[in-house]
């Protein structure tokens, strides 16, 4: 049981750790590539989006990669 708990918590920690790194990239740079509305929005909006980006980063990463493929 201890082992399952430890593995689970490490995976959870990794998920949020990677999310944090992706989140920083996304709110400062990546987000505007995905959604042009963001460019014209106030900067504080990006702060508000930050926790949600950390929580859902795999979806946003997938979408970001898809849009970049379409562009090139």
């Amino acid at each position, binding site marked *: *049981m*201890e082992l399952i*708990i*430890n593995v689970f*918590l490490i995976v959870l920690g990794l998920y949020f750790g990677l999310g944090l790194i992706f989140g920083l990239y996304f709110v400062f740079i990546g987000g505007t590539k*995905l*959604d042009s*509305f*963001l460019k*014209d*929005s*106030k900067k*504080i*909006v990006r702060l*508000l*989006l930050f*926790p*949600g980006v*950390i*929580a*859902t980063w795999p*979806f*946003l990463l997938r*979408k970001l990669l898809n849009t970049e493929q379409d562009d090139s």
Partner: protein
Amino acid sequence: MGLDYKFVLWNKHKKTYDKFIALGMVLYLILFFVLTLVTNAELTVETIIIRAFGSLAIIVLHIILIIGPLTRLNPKYLPILYNRRHLGVSMFLAALVHGLFSIINFHTLGDKNPIVSIFTSNMDYGSLHNFPFQVLGFFALLILFVMASTSHDFFLKNLSPKIWKQLHMLVYLAYALVILHVFLGAFQQETSLFTIGILILGFLMISGLHVIAAFKEGKIDSAKGELDSNGWLKVCYTDEIEESRAKIFTVKNERVAIFKNEDKLSAIHNVCKHQGGPLGEGKIVDGCITCPWHGYQYLPHNGQSPPPFTEKVNTYELKVLEGIVYINPDAMAEGTEVAPIVC
């Protein structure tokens, strides 16, 4: 449907609601503190904070879960629905205070990581009356975090409405986890009868309202009309639809709203592109069908949002014979122009 994102979509009504929510929550907390101090003076401040915010969160969660079926039963409650997201974020914040104080109070004194400690301080996973109930609270809080942090329209658009909706349906799982958290916790803490009573009443109310609302919608869904020789479906008399309003019908398992605008009829798919709001429960404002939930607009004759917006819904062909409205059950592509029919 702005072209940029706002920090929070506030207008005068929403500000009033938000003040109402904030005031209600503060009043509840004050009342909780005073009553607890009067009735149970030996409790520590930390314990009172934990209980006050935990019970506040679960009460707000009940309100959130009741709003959905309530608006389906009576559109009068729709304005509360617009504000449900703010209610959701407020609930998460209350639950967060509860969770953080519990962690500080029970899990920061040892040498273990506090999160690990939630999972391992009590390993009685096989037991019912000594189950580590805080783990259930932890998972519920995790779900509430994902929901609250993605409640902005940005995520609705960029995660896709489908994934967003699926994420937000997790609220029911969170609700189940919280219920278990409190019930299993009650075996170990002296949880008040008041809290347990509220939970049981709340559960009956939430499930009851959901069943009644589903039953009512089921009735609309099963209303079947006759087909004419061309396979068009007879739906109603022209005078059954009020000016600037719609009636909703089910055609080939899809909801369709038939609107009357200046004595002409137009039919569009009933589901708003924003968050699936019921367009047929909205009105025509300035010539546009206006979603009752957040005000997205569509032109009756082509189902398109007026420029510069780009949303489109399916349209349907209609005909009127001797005052009876018929609809072609095959939807036109989204945004297809269909000339309105004079009644």
